[in-house]
């Protein structure tokens, strides 16, 4: 469904990604791990269109994604749950979710999606009318994911969902992500610093370090590989 070929991106004068290639098949759950500054978020921004690459190609469901303007990419069915949640803080929980379903073809399934989101994250139903900015970190993350789901996406991009969250809350988030993938076979691309959580639920994984793919393979192989630890800690 998603194919990234030889992608190179420069960001603020520095090489953020060099010759990165990866594939996500339909229904697959792929994880990308790596230390801070490895370029994981830049990869997502390039897919979503807020950053333009120097070289390389991205194909989504057969079409050349780079030829599609950023605001239109969401309408193709790509849901990007950004790093740091990025909820609309001055708007209520419900309004945030409604905005997730902004694209016209998401409206018919709105009721059904809303039920599903509230089923996954009951706390959002409780806090429907609260301003998103007053939610806790974990609740905001749930909201961001819910907002992504509201658009009935074909591809879900999750950027560091555990960032800044306490371990127990992060665990909860990962369980929900796993559940979502299991229930709908939703094609999911997850970027994470927490290696085990990311790798244990995914089908295959890639390890990024300073903008390059240094390791890739099925998840069980990666979990047992000490080179992953080296990628993070340097020695």
């Amino acid at each position: 469904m998603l194919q990234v070929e030889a992608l190179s991106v420069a960001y603020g004068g520095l090489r953020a990604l060099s010759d990165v290639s990866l594939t996500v098949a339909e229904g697959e759950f792929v994880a990308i791990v790596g230390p801070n500054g490895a370029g994981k978020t830049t990869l997502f921004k390039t897919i979503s269109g807020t950053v333009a690459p120097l070289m390389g190609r991205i194909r989504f469901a057969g079409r050349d994604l780079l030829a599609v303007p950023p605001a239109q990419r969401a309408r193709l069915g790509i849901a990007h749950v950004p790093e740091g949640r990025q909820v609309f803080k001055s708007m209520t929980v419900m309004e945030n979710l409604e905005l997730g379903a902004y694209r016209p073809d998401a409206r018919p399934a709105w009721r059904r999606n809303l039920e599903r989101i509230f089923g996954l994250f009951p706390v959002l139903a409780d806090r429907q009318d609260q301003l998103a900015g007053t939610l806790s970190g974990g609740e905001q993350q749930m909201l961001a994911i819910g907002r992504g789901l509201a658009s009935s996406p074909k591809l879900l991009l999750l950027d560091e969902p555990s960032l800044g969250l306490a371990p127990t809350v992060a665990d909860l988030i990962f369980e929900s992500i796993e559940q979502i993938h299991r229930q709908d076979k939703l094609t999911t691309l997850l970027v994470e610093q927490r290696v085990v959580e990311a790798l244990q639920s995914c089908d295959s994984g890639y390890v990024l370090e300073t903008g390059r793919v240094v390791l890739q393979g099925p998840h069980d192989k990666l979990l047992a590989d000490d080179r992953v630890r080296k990628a993070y800690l340097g020695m």
Partner: protein
Amino acid sequence: MQTQALVEDFFQALTAGILDGSIYGLMCVGLGLIFGVMRVINFAQGEFLMLGMYFTLYIATGLALTALLGPYAGPFVAVALAGLVLFAGGYLLHRYLVSRVTGTRAVGAEGEGHYAQLILTLGVALILQNGGLIVFGSTPQSLRTPLSSSAWEIGLPFGGSAAVLVNKARAVAFLVSIATTAGLFWFIHRSHLGKALRAAADNPEAAIYMGIDVDRAHRTAFGIGTGVTAVAGGLVATYYPFQPYVGLEFVIIMYAGVVLGGMGSILGAFWGGMTIGLVQQLSALVLPFQLQNVAIFAVFLLVVLVRPQGLYGRSVERT
């Protein structure tokens, strides 16, 4: 008798403050959308106010609306039309000029965005002000309606025969202001498009991920802001004379009101404008007329120095 005169004066000033304040409130709502929500500096906002006044005048007389719809409805329809014209004007201004100095494109430009916005819109203001002088002439104009020169007399429940005069044109303008503000509030908070606009202002990056055309949203919000202020101008025109330089008088009032009301809040901007109106009228009780505006500047400076987050409005940290 002395006390009665004082009481009358006080309540007259209070009434005037509320009536004028509501119009200031509407002006501030317009700027609040632009400066408060989008954080764009528009130095030419006062000129849009002025253009609102003139367009109302010319539409009302030029299209013979007063003849067609009668002297009561005519001017107010003209106000609405003027608002639409200046919505379009603001939209185009943003599309072709302002957008070049806002947002990510502006980073790296000299003056880092905000300065460039200030200076660019200063240029626009100069052109509109002086262009106005050329096109409209310097003679003060006004839009006289039968309402402008009649007033209701409202007796006060105390103080003997004390009464307050309420100018009819101002009173109608007050009602229209409240209605427009309420309408705008409803639009921004309840309508689909309004939510998209708020989202685009709150977090442009996330808005793109939702599929919102952020550029178009910013333009639309800017246009609404200028249109609303123009409507306020049109309302002022029904009871106050104006000339092409009138915008400058109101610029500080508008910024003071928005800052006072708390950035990011439409209703806050309205209350901020209302407060300024009250300050102005009540200060007239003790200060000579020319120094009223000085009192407003003093308030503005105080707010900006002491409590820049404003007095009203919700204070949720923006992304």
